[in-house]
């Protein structure tokens, strides 16, 4: 007989005390508080009456309170600036450069407040595109964590100090400094700023300016004679990327995305695409867009590049090296074949910081004749100039005590250098430490003085991201706080009395201008950019001599031999970047393009490793690196991650960034390997489970599209053969035979007379970067909800980018049972193909949401818009329930005044943050549904401008924020009633070929049309 075990709830039950017995009879431990408050001892008193009394009183009070309208003030300007008209936006050309991310921008200001940033179409570099970080930069302006003025350190805290005092103290201390003065910065691409620094340095013998990058390209620079080569992906027909996330945050996100996509758009008349191979460890944004993606371990990188080099050297008659063979020969062969076939239009790029790898890559490009075509030697890239060796030497010198003063500009090595501990110990030995940081960040916390810099949107500056392309930034708002521009501070400290604006003008007059300078300057400030001008160019410090081929060969052999165990790749996300802008909630909540994770970093592990070690998603792992550093982070099972490797993103684990970023994730910089002359963002690690669990907030938790026609794709061969056969159109059975669903309808169709707004989204062009998502947030005041609410599936983005992985199992081919098949279809492949699909309100002409709203809060307009009327909505959520695209969002909270969101949603909680809100769009209240409006405020504005001029709107004049943001023009918006609009032309051209509607079988007749993705992924 089985032994019956007894379990107790606690010791009380075991002892069975009288109190316990008594309590156990009462279901609720305490009396309901409503009775207690009344002091009613009698149990018979009915709380119902109290409840009704309270309700009645509350109702009456609320009614009385609402009777009296509050007195509102209207405060006009005292002296209205000539160019400001209340209600009319002003646009200023400017530049955003932060965190290695360059964007020429236009800043939209309303009543003197910058509220949105858009790309500047005049720029020859970014050509109207804008990265997610560029989009979010406007929010950083209103960051509460920014310093309100200069501070000096006293004891462990910082106290406020005036600029006069700080200038006096610093100049005195600098004059008496013993040892050399060092200015540590991240990459500076401003020629004038560099001139200021040179002038400042001339005053102090032994002055040294050190540039370093949190994710360094030092080896790339060193291998190419001191600069990053002027890559031009628009000329490349065959591309091989090796751990280079070039349409991500590598060197020049928007510029490369623009170039890359020019050869990826296909039409019936021009069905040609570039061929892109990507060999990488972590599944990057670039890898997700590649035609052929091969997962490799970091240690295989050298072997692969050497093998590629050897094969090409054999074909072109170069020197062949003795290196180990690369295992995946099929893909290697194909890559070699395509590269050789496209000589002069081929490009190989590597994101490695290994000099040997970069030396070989340079040689490959030379052999392929890339220089002069896909690499423009006349226009090298300046966005990364960091020199690892120099930075390492300075850290040593600081520890040796030979540095007298150190100044940090845009540099935070205590957080983002792998040798942070050594930086800290070194700083203790430096007599004078000054930081220009805009907040008390990790490094600034150790500084004696913090003299905060203006935000970019408050300052004058110039930028040269690529030789010959210069742009300006200009103040779009008076400084919010008592900050001062870095350049002004340096000029003051070097005894120069000119302000930086005059200095900049003088520099430009002598360097860029010819003829009438005032006219030239006015035009330059107006346009914001100068394209193809002759500039002196920039050099990045003294680099070590490049490596010889033989040395490279030896190095490759050594790396390959040294590798064992699980390998770690430290990478940078395109959202949060190096972590400099981590205190920006837009960037924190913007889902990672691949993993769809928000508000955290994690250990990305391959499926095989998860199976092997029995790791489930969200299990907290302890990752111990060979250099002794450990880090604890939850696991995220990442399809496409190379076997035997894990990856961790940097940019998280800030401690001094501000309340949004502090404590989010863990810092991965210390996991990088520091060698004699550089930093390798790889390491050997061991992994163990801690037993704890920490949920990762993902905006998408399903991975495959289960063979449904949500997204459609076809191969380039099929497309070339018959463009009308690449898209599957659903037919439904009718008495008259199979018909298109739109032929069978319950509803009468409406004839659009004036406008019929429509959107085309080219899945072939969408790279999944997420710029449109933040463009939408910025335009439409979408609330940010924070990690817990994302976990609750209550994220509020009106536009999301769905990412689907391919699966190995298909319904047609599977030999399993039906249930097993479906289960297997949910599993993504080990190395899946990835497809991105921006998903927003489809503005269905037969909208399922409209028919179920009991209060007619969502209706259809005569221009084809699915309108959402917040003030009418009572929050039944029937519409969200009935929407097949799941694009309707419910306001669960009053995000504007709920303490719970004061950390994650500061832009709506504080007066400072509210300055970023778009005054033309309502901030929605709690309890209503909201969703994409096709930017109706922009449509209305465009129409009004046309009406004022007495004309029809021009095509391209009215675009939604997402279409405007898209750096690859994947989203096209326009009037489908205008036969000459771009949308109409594309729809006519692609009708029956690539154009399809999502879930067409439902006959919702959306106004958003998608174009089938075409893949060039066959291997001959």
């Amino acid at each position, binding site marked *: 007989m089985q032994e019956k075990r007894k379990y107790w709830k606690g010791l009380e039950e075991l002892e069975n005390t009288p109190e316990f017995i008594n309590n156990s009879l009462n279901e609720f431990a305490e009396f309901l508080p409503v009775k207690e408050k009344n002091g009613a001892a009698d149990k018979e008193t009915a709380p119902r009456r109290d409840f009704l009394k309270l309700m009645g009183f509350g109702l009456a009070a609320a009614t009385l309170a609402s009777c009296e309208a509050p007195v509102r003030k209207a*405060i*006009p300007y*005292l002296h*209205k600036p000539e160019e400001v008209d209340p209600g009319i936006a002003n646009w200023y050309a400017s530049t955003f450069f932060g965190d290695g991310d360059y964007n020429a921008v236009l800043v939209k200001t309303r009543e003197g407040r910058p509220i949105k940033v858009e790309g500047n179409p005049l720029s020859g570099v970014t050509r109207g595109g804008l990265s997610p970080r560029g989009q979010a930069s406007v929010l950083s302006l209103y960051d509460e964590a920014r310093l309100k003025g200069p501070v000096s350190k006293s004891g462990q805290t910082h106290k406020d100090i005036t600029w006069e005092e700080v200038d006096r103290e610093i100049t005195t201390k600098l004059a008496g400094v013993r040892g050399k003065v060092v200015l540590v910065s991240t990459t500076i691409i401003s020629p004038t700023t560099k001139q200021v620094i040179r002038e400042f340095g001339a005053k102090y013998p032994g002055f040294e300016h050190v540039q370093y990058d949190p994710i360094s390209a030092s080896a790339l620079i060193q291998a190419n004679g001191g600069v990053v080569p002027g890559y031009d992906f628009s000329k490349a027909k065959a591309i091989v990327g090796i751990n280079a996330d070039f349409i991500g945050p590598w060197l020049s996100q928007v510029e490369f995305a623009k170039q890359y996509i020019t050869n990826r758009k296909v039409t019936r008349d021009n069905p040609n695409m570039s061929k892109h191979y990507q060999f990488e460890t972590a599944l990057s944004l670039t890898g997700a867009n590649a035609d052929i993606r091969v997962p490799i371990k970091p240690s295989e990188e050298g072997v692969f590049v050497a093998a590629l080099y050897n094969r090409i050297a054999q074909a072109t008659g170069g020197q062949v090296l003795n290196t180990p063979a690369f295992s995946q020969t099929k893909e290697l062969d194909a890559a070699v074949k395509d590269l050789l076939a496209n000589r002069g239009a081929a490009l190989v790029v590597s994101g490695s910081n290994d000099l040997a790898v970069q030396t070989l890559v340079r040689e490959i490009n030379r052999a392929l004749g890339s220089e002069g075509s896909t690499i423009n030697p006349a226009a090298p890239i300046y966005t990364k100039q960091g020199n690892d060796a120099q930075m390492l030497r300075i850290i040593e010198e600081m520890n040796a005590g030979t540095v007298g003063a150190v100044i940090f500009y845009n540099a935070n090595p205590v957080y983002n250098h792998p040798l942070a501990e050594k930086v800290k110990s070194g700083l203790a030995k430096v007599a004078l430490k000054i930081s220009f940081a805009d907040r008390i960040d990790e490094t600034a916390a150790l500084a004696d003085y913090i003299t905060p810099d203006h935000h970019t949107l408050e300052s004058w500056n110039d930028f040269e991201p690529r030789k010959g392309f210069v742009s300006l930034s200009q103040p779009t708002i008076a400084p919010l706080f008592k900050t001062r521009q870095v350049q002004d501070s340096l000029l003051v400290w070097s005894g120069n009395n000119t302000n930086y604006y005059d200095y900049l003008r003088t520099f430009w007059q002598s360097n860029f201008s010819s003829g009438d300078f005032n006219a030239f300057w006015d035009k330059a400030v107006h346009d914001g950019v100068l394209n193809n001008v002759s500039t002196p160019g920039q050099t990045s410090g003294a680099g070590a001599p490049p490596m010889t081929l033989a040395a490279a060969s030896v190095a490759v052999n050594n790396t390959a031999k040294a590798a064992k165990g699980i390998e770690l790749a430290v990478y940078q996300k395109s959202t949060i970047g190096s972590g400099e802008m981590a205190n920006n909630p837009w960037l924190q909540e913007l889902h990672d393009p691949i993993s769809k994770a928000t508000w955290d970093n994690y250990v990305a592990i391959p499926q095989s490793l998860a199976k092997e070690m029995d790791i489930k998603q969200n299990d907290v792992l302890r990752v111990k690196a060979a250099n002794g550093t450990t880090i604890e982070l939850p696991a995220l099972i990442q399809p496409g991650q190379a076997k035997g490797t894990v990856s961790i993103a940097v940019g998280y684990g800030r401690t001094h960034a501000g309340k949004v970023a502090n404590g989010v994730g863990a810092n991965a910089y210390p996991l990088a390997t520091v060698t004699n002359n550089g930093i390798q963002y790889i390491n050997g690690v061991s992994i163990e489970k801690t037993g704890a669990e920490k949920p990762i907030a993902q905006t998408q938790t399903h991975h495959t599209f289960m063979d449904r026609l949500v997204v459609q794709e076809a191969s380039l061969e099929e497309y070339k053969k018959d463009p009308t056969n690449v898209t599957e159109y659903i037919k439904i059975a009718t008495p008259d035979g199979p018909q298109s669903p739109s032929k069978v309808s319950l509803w009468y169709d409406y004839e659009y007379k004036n406008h019929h707004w429509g959107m085309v989204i080219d899945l072939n062009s969408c790279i999944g970067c997420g710029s449109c998502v933040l463009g939408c947030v910025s335009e439409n005041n979408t609330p940010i909800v924070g990690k817990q609410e994302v976990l609750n599936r209550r994220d509020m983005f009106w536009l999301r980018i769905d990412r689907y992985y391919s699966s190995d199992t298909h319904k047609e081919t599977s030999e399993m049972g039906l249930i097993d098949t479906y289960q297997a279809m949910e599993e993504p492949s080990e190395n899946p193909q990835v497809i991105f699909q921006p998903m927003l309100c489809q503005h269905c002409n037969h909208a399922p949401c409209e028919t179920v709203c009991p209060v007619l809060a969502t209706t259809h307009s005569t221009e084809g818009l699915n309108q959402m009327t917040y*003030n009418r909505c009572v929050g039944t959520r029937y519409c969200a329930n009935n929407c097949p695209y799941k694009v309707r969002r419910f306001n669960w909270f009053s995000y504007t005044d709920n303490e719970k969101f004061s950390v994650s949603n500061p832009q709506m909680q504080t007066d400072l943050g509210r300055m970023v809100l778009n005054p033309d769009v*309502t901030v929605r209240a709690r309890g209503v549904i909201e969703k994409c409006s096709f930017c109706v405020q922009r449509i209305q504005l465009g129409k*009004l401008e046309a009406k004022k001029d007495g004309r029809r709107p021009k095509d391209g004049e009215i675009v939604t924020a997402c279409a405007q943001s898209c750096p690859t023009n994947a989203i096209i918006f326009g009037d489908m009633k205008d036969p000459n609009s771009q949308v109409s032309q594309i729809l006519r051209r692609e009708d029956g070929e690539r154009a399809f509607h999502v879930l067409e079988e439902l006959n919702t007749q959306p106004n958003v049309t998608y174009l089938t993705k075409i893949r060039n992924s066959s291997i001959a």
Partner: protein
Amino acid sequence: MISCKSNKKYSFLLALLFSFLTVFSSFAQGEQASVSQDGVTAGAAGPDVQAGGTLFKNNCASCHAINEKVVGPALRDIHKKHKLPWLISWIRNSSKMVQSGDKQAVQIFNEYDKQQMPSFAFSDEEITSIVKYIEAESAAPVATTAPTGGNANDQTAQAATDGPGGESIGDAGKYLNFILIALIVLLIVMVITLLIIANLMKDYLRGKKDLEGNDIELVEQRWDFSKVYKSRAVQVIAGLIFFCVLLDIAIEETYGVGLSQGYQPRQPIAFSHKLHAGEHQINCNYCHTSVYKSASANIPSANICMNCHSQIKKDSPEIQKIYSAIEKNKPIEWVRVHNLPDFSYFNHSQHTKVGGIECQTCHGPIESMNVVYQYSPLTMGWCINCHRETPLNTEGNKYYDNLVKLHDEANKGAAFTVASNGGAECSKCHY
């Protein structure tokens, strides 16, 4: 005399009917959002005068009035004082004339503190039309200053009688009151006379001994009030009236929640639109500079006030408030009169520039308001009603050309209103 009682009943019923009528008529008034469409009718004057009037209001009115010295001289009968060619060259470039030593010019220049009149690059025809306008205005008697702004004369006059800001009561109204009082006095006299006659007759009857049954009843009749109180019919009717009145008040009040029609707050500076827009005929656009180009018709900044008040009435205590605001660098905090809810979007330029709507259509007789009040209810019903009734201003606007054609093809004769072009849809105002 028996009919007396039943008459009383009828009068109660009449009273009831009357009270119902008032209740419902007040409803009807509440819902009415009548849109005056005669605001755009042109005066009887010739085209030249009209054009001149427009030019005058837009360019001259800020410094000149017909009958009053403002910054510059009063322009009454200016055509008699100066010859047209002289006026033309003066308006085009007055300083040149002063420099050339023209006697009249120098005299005016000196008389007005050596202040220069800015030059206006008008054509001969334009200046002629302005002079013609002044000529026409001079011909009008001095006392009646024509209200300005939007040719909305009749509307204004009417509003002046019954608008909350109106001060004078019309003549007809005065007589009406006298007649009413006289009538009431007459009625009372009649009632008393009749009562006296009735008593006399009763007394006479009592004196007689040989009365018939009916007559005895009549003589013995006692007026018993308690019977009337206690009668069920009276109670029901009184209850009903009480209930109706309560209901009326409740509904009125409920509809009025959040409504602030007639809201007339005290402003920090006693600025009078009546003086500026009415008497001095300064164009609305002169101060509310963005009304034709922006969503907001901005409240003028202090520097716009200073365009004139750096010269005029500098010592007025109200103007001094502006000076002190400028000195203290503290903006003037006006009380906002017209408040729309945050979730509705309104664009002035859409209505003024594109729609060609006069300011007075929504803001009422602003040129006769000493203190601005909210003229229109600003409810959604009021907006929508206007959108339903107002024909679109499509004339000469290429945006609408094809739409008008399509509309006329589909609906013969029906007006092409704002609503028929989608102007009543949610997303036109709510986003």
